[in-house]
């Protein structure tokens, strides 16, 4: 099933504390805990790389202002 990718997010993984609020908030389910540890020993959040609908919910709920949200000028279709 093809779903639209309307934008993307960047996560400052060093700043991220791994609270999971963004993961819980994301309606597209495109954020997950990374397998990697950051230098503080958390599993930070990571974007799965596609499917972001640029709704900004993750940005709204992130208590550590780690997320930057972009919207594509021309919405791309994901594979």
């Amino acid at each position, binding site marked *: 099933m093809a779903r639209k990718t309307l*934008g*993307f997010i*960047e996560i400052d993984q060093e*700043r991220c*504390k*791994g*609270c*999971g*609020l963004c993961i*819980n*908030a994301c309606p597209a389910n495109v954020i997950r805990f990374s397998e990697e540890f950051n230098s503080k020993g*958390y599993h930070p959040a990571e974007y799965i790389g596609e499917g972001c609908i*640029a*709704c*900004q*919910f993750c*940005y*709204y*709920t*992130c*208590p*550590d*202002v780690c*997320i*930057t*949200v*972009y*919207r*594509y*000028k*021309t919405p791309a279709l994901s594979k």
Partner: protein
Amino acid sequence: MSEQVKDAILLASMPKSLSGKEFTYCPGCHHGIVHRLIAELIDEFGLKEKTLLVAPVGCSVFAYEFFDVDGTVAAHGRALAVATGMKRARPDMFVLTYQGDGDLAAIGTAETIHAANRGERITTVFINNAVYGMTGGQMAPTTLLGMKTTTSPYGRDPKREGYPIHIMEIMKALPGVAYAERVKVSKPQDVPKAKMAIKKAFYAQLLDVGFGIVEVLSTCPTNWGMDPVEAGKWLDENMVKEFPLGVYVDKVTEVMKEKGVK
């Protein structure tokens, strides 16, 4: 990534009025969300060079370090007295206090009520998480009935510990208050609403209407003993019942209309 960015519009990123310093709050704590909202509004209003921030004693005792604005930290409970001193001495500045429930509603109740009642042109953001976070989970004036804390180990019993205090309802009785609203930020949809409320409280000061205060129901996952997601659910299911959300005082919207402000 840069290729990607070229083809995109930036929707949301760290506000300029934050210093960039990492918050000291526990993972999932709502303080950070509210800090960001305040910083966004300072940016949007272009107030960075005019803002004086008064931090309280509580978990947000370091708040003034997280913003790129001039500030101080008041003695416990006295933020609104300090802010009054600043605003009276420099009425051209934008004065903001950021206070928790112990600070604003227990030790500082007199300062809160009197600054509000004098209609001080000050904006206050009041974080209510029903517990003393900083000192390790003691009972707050806003602790819910039945809620266990380190100083109400059998659960808050009104016969013993009295009732949770309702600051917004008290604000309603004070003529100096221009704006008072209770909000939460536990769901993404709540966040823009909370921002709009704080914006109105900014306008209460900027349009010279009176005292503006927004109570934000917040989680304290650490002291509540819940993971951050669970804490948000608990807030929605329990705190909102005791502390109904909504606008309690609004003398601002009308003035905004009169002055053509959106």
